């Protein structure tokens, strides 16, 4: 584990990505613990639409609420959605991909064709469709994003699982009479940890973007809650008057995605044995 951390810190994009992601998580936790400069819902009527100042580092919005406080809460909200949706997607996708590869035949065909159909739609469109059916809200957007990204995990797992299934050590396990669940968890899953870790990190970046998109369209987090996408959509009409309302949440989204992408690239380099030499 410590060797893994050393290698991650030795990788230049891993270092940057790791610091960004860690900083975001700390911010989100701090906001959750109430460590924001102001109450994010408190309205300073007199100070409406003020630019950044010493009192309000990122200015105030049209209701006089502190942008920095709302941004911190928003990051927490966006991360909550991103992590839980990717978690669910990874769980479902892995389960489907693993069983499709292992049992093959009809189940494989059924699962994979369904995934092909889902992958044929653009992510945001599919999420929209899902929300249109279920109704907007934070919880729905988590489910929607999980639903959209599960096919990617299914594919990522099925390919390597198929090649692992044909390896001699799996045959050996079968000759011992090991149970299917033992083979799936110990022999297949253990060898799939590396590709899954990479995929989870990269999917976090996409799901952060999708969440922002959904909230921007008013289908994710509902006011008066705060999320990065919601902050953008609230302030889009005030763009010329109060550009800071757009700039800060926009930067927050961009940096977050950059962080996850850099981290994902670094993990891919470190965990993939084929490129290990190139790193060393």
């Amino acid at each position, binding site marked *: 584990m410590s060797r893994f951390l050393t290698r991650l810190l030795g990788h230049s994009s891993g270092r940057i990505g790791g610091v960004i992601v860690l900083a975001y998580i700390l911010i989100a936790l701090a906001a959750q613990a109430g460590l924001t400069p102001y109450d994010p819902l408190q309205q300073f009527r007199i100070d409406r639409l003020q630019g950044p100042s010493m009192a309000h580092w990122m200015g105030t919005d049209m209701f006089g609420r502190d942008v920095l406080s709302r941004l911190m809460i928003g990051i927490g909200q966006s991360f909550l959605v991103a992590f839980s949706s990717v978690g669910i997607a990874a769980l479902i996708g892995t389960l489907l991909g693993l069983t499709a590869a292992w049992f093959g035949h009809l189940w494989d065909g059924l699962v994979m064709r369904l995934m092909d159909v889902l992958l044929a739609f653009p992510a945001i469109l599919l999420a929209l469709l899902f929300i249109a059916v279920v109704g907007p809200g934070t919880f729905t957007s988590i489910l929607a994003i999980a639903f959209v990204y599960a096919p990617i995990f299914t594919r990522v797992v099925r390919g390597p699982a198929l090649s692992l299934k044909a390896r001699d050590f799996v045959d050996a396990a*079968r000759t011992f009479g090991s149970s299917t669940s033992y083979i799936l968890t110990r022999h297949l899953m253990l060898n799939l940890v590396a590709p899954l870790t990479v995929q989870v990190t990269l999917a976090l970046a996409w799901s952060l973007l999708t969440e922002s998109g959904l909230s921007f369209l008013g289908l994710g987090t509902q006011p008066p809650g705060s999320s990065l996408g919601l902050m953008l959509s609230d302030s889009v009409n005030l763009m010329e008057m109060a550009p800071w309302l757009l700039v800060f949440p926009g930067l927050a989204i961009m940096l977050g995605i950059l962080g996850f992408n850099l981290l994902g690239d670094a993990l891919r380099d470190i965990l993939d044995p084929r490129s290990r030499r190139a790193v060393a």
Partner: protein
Amino acid sequence: MSRLLSVRGLTVGFGRGDTAKTVVHGIDFDLSPGETLAIVGESGSGKSVTALSINRLIDDGGGRILGGRMEFTTARGEVVDLVSATDRRMEKIRGSEIGMIFQEPMTSLNPVMTIGRQIEETFRLQQGLGHAAARLEALNALERVRIADAERRLGYYPHQLSGGMLQRVMIAMALAANPRLLIADEPTTALDVSVQAQIMALLAELRRETGTGMIFITHDMGLVAGIADRVMVMNGGRVVEQGTLDDIFDRPQHPYTRHLLQAVPHFSHGRHVRRDVSPGGRALVRPALKVEGLTVRFPATTGLLRRPAGAIHAVEGVGFELMPGETLAIVGESGSGKSTTARALLGLVKASRGSFSLHAGDEIPRRKPIQMVFQNPYASLNPRLDVESLLAEPVLAGGVRPDGDTRKRMMSLLERVGLPSDSLRRYPHEFSGGQRQRLCIARALMVDPSVLVLDEAVSALDVSVQARVLDLLIDLQNDLKLAYLFVSHDMAVVERIAHRIAVLYAGQIVEIGRADAVLSNPRHDYTRRLIAAVPTTDRRRDVFRLQTEAVPSLLRPRGYEPPEAVWAVCGEDHQVLVEQRAMMGEAR
């Protein structure tokens, strides 16, 4: 006569800076035109690196030539130092002056181009021939390497040809421009014995015809005997000994050479079989494994609609008995059904018909009476599990929670197979190939089986390692009264370990009996062919015969049932299948 190649102080290394490592330490050798030099050594001896350095392909492999000179005399009489030649110059020399054949013919050819086009390409690039002329040359080249029906084969894709055929294609391409030097890097290691014999025969014939100088790289001392004029033995990146074939074989000076020569399993036509189980006692004990009429068929389909076209009869009516403490070797070439037989016994493939019964011995109730050791120790251990988890698996699979006793058993088995006692916490990649195979054997023994199926269990190991693992297996067998089903293509190895031999051909046992009887007095044509193809150090300058006969297809029409097997008894415990005319007609 001037020298073709003269190498002085060749030093090759990999990596740069702190991680730099020298793998070839200043080697010298000479090669005259038309002469064959064999470079022999085990994995890691630097023999392949030396070969790749000669045509400077090592530059692409991450290595660097650190010093020395390699003077090569071209066809026009110029002397070129291959170490300092420019890349452009090397491109001209490669192919037209120095040809190369690699170990894996399957991966050396482009799978999406017909072999005809690939051969033509060599002619077009190297001799600037036009399309029609190149095609004619390609046809000639295929005929030169004795490929029957060459015109039709030009239109084949690599996957449509067998490994032996592909290696011939590779040889044809390497010889396309009449190079003065041919480098063959383990050209037959990936092939069956009888195919290997044919490739060796072809190389010897071509050498006589063309007068090409050859550097032949191998780990197999037996092969060297048939082809080399001079031998160079390498170990750890250094030349330990070089000399003429007779000098090396009859008067080896260096202990390592002697060690290599001793480690080669000598095939002696059944004179050195094991005699530690008395054949008379067979009738008295119950067999540990009894197989009757084992048949495995895979359905074959044709066309887009996947209509059933019949079945591949991979194993057909195989039956034998295996006594406790006895080794039955199953020999045959790839496609003969020997591995399928083993896998069917372990339940890895489903038997279509037939039965087998295991008798575990009366004393203790056994948990899992049959276990298997696979060919490739690198693939049969999960790289992410430590040794303790690996060894615990068969126990867990039997529904038993590992406890202190299990741990004690692990320790004693590790010691028994000759692995250090601190191995439990280590991972497979920390072990060498031979150690991994010992680990696999220990794992199979965890549940105290009565029958061990060894599927080519020593084929992937270096000769000296192979010899030690065989000794271990024999010791274990004698101590634990294990019955071995030893699947192998290597007759010399089989002779060392087998009590009885079953020869499998096209899915059927064609000959079965006591090892000495089968090896010294083979009755079936196929057994004779297999034995004739074994390369040994005793068969120096024996000319390998060329054959073009192919293994018959195992695809049979729907509903086909083979005729009842008729056995001819030819001695005590020695039977041979009587070939039936109908079947032979089918096979042709």
